[in-house]
């Protein structure tokens, strides 16, 4: 049956869903509604190669307009500011109405904002989209001292890029380690050492009390009464799912849009995918929200299948990466629920990995290495995790033995 399918949010999950629907359904109308006047593009380079001028805007798009047109996928640049789930309608600011039979919500996430009690909120910069990346790139070009509030992935990636642009960078983190929400301390400390070796200043366990502007220079007052002087302030203090639009509707929300393993929301014919979801993961038997490239892609594809009537469970084992200086950090599985840690390697030139086990079963791993040094072993860990494998600890800890052996035994 020919349907009107609308995808709200033209990011990574949205475009992968659209193409997957088309693969399974040649008839239905597929329309992506996107607030950004850009075809869907990759965000990871925004904090890395785009700031470093190694990639430009044209390198970021997932697909050219020709590919999207050939698949008969419509893209419209519009901000949706009202939804009526009962009558299956979306409304734009100019009162344009979009009617759907099936809806996918893939609105991503928004950056958390610092609450400043003076009028300096416009003086603090954030990075989520290409527009903001362009502004930061342009503004920092004539600045020297840059302060980044928040030692999470995005903040540290910006710190790495700006350091490579010869800026004097300070990172202020409220927690007692970098990337504290999900990365084990052992790996966080190795990352911190690299930042320091490269000349970045890392301040842990400190909170911002106030920011003051004096003659174009900012003074950041910390809770221990110390003051950081800086020319430019960027904040990367985490994100929240983009759900404002749905707050007064009956769509079930709880740290994002709650979905089951088929990307279905609490409302019939309404699906959700990507950063915006708090989805049920059947392997872990619980809900989770992930903000990663691999998840946005695979979750979008899974939603696309289900919208097209191909009932498919989402079972991907989580995986993400971060690139800082010449280091590549990777994380797979769940590394916060374990009773044993096994280390492999102790030199980042050859890769250092920590495996997390519970009841002898491998649950996940986090690794750090120059370029892709940990990639293969992390990938193998995802496969072992998926199969609930009891692993040979001696092989895990011995860098001279290839982990390939462990999957071939299956």
């Amino acid at each position: 049956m020919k349907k009107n399918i609308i995808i709200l949010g033209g990011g990574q999950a949205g475009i992968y869903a659209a193409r997957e629907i088309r693969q399974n359904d040649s008839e239905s109308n597929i329309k992506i509604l996107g607030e950004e006047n850009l075809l869907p593009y990759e965000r990871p380079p925004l904090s890395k190669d785009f700031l470093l001028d190694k990639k430009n805007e044209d390198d970021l798009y997932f697909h050219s307009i020709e590919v999207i047109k050939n698949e008969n996928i419509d893209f419209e640049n519009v901000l949706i500011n009202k939804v009526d789930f009962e009558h299956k309608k979306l409304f734009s600011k100019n009162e344009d109405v979009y009617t759907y039979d099936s809806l996918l919500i893939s609105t991503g996430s928004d950056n958390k904002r610092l609450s400043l009690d003076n009028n300096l909120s416009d003086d603090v910069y954030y990075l989520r989209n290409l527009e903001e990346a362009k502004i930061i790139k342009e503004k920092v070009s004539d600045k020297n001292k840059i302060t980044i509030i928040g030692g999470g992935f995005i903040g540290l990636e910006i710190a790495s890029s700006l350091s490579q642009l010869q800026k004097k960078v300070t990172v202020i983190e409220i927690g007692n380690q970098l990337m504290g929400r999900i990365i084990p301390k052992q790996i966080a400390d190795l990352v911190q050492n690299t930042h320091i070796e490269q000349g970045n200043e890392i301040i842990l366990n400190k909170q911002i009390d106030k920011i003051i502007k004096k003659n174009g220079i900012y003074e950041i007052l910390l809770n221990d009464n110390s003051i950081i002087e800086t020319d430019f302030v960027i904040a990367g203090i985490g994100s929240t799912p983009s759900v404002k639009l749905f707050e007064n509707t009956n769509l079930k929300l709880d740290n994002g849009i709650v979905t089951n393993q088929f990307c279905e929301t609490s409302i019939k014919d309404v699906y959700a995918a990507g950063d915006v979801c708090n989805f049920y993961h059947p392997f872990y038997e619980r809900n989770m929200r992930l903000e990663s490239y691999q998840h946005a892609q695979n979750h979008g594809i899974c939603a696309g299948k289900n919208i097209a009537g191909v009932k498919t469970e989402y079972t991907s084992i989580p995986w993400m990466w971060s690139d800082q200086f010449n280091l590549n950090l990777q994380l797979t599985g769940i590394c916060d629920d374990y009773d044993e840690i096994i280390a492999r390697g102790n030199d980042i030139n050859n890769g250092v990995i920590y495996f997390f086990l519970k009841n002898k079963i491998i649950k996940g791993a986090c690794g750090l290495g120059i370029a892709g040094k940990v990639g293969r072993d992390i990938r193998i860990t995802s496969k072992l995790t998926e199969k609930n494998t009891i692993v040979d600890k001696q092989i895990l800890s011995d860098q001279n033995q290839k982990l390939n052996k462990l999957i071939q035994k299956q």
Partner: protein
Amino acid sequence: MSEENWIEVGSTDSIEEEDLIRFDHQDKTFCVYRLTDGFYATDGICTHEAVHLEDGLVMDDEIECPMHQGIFNIKSGEALSPPACEDLKTYPVKVDNDKIFIKID
């Protein structure tokens, strides 16, 4: 086909099945693979960013980049999964007296 373009990589038992080795020649890097049905060769550097594929995982006919999990078909070089979107160059391989040779143009 001129004979001199066939470069010796090593002996066939230097690569385990479903695995690869890196081979450097002049200023270029290649990956040579042993799959269930024979030997294959591609460029040794990912087309996405300049990362050595030698640290990647070989699965069936595919090589997965160790940096961001871009996937290429080893036999055709086709980029199968983002962020890799540009194909990988492939090279002819022959085996002679248990020695592997690749033809570099």
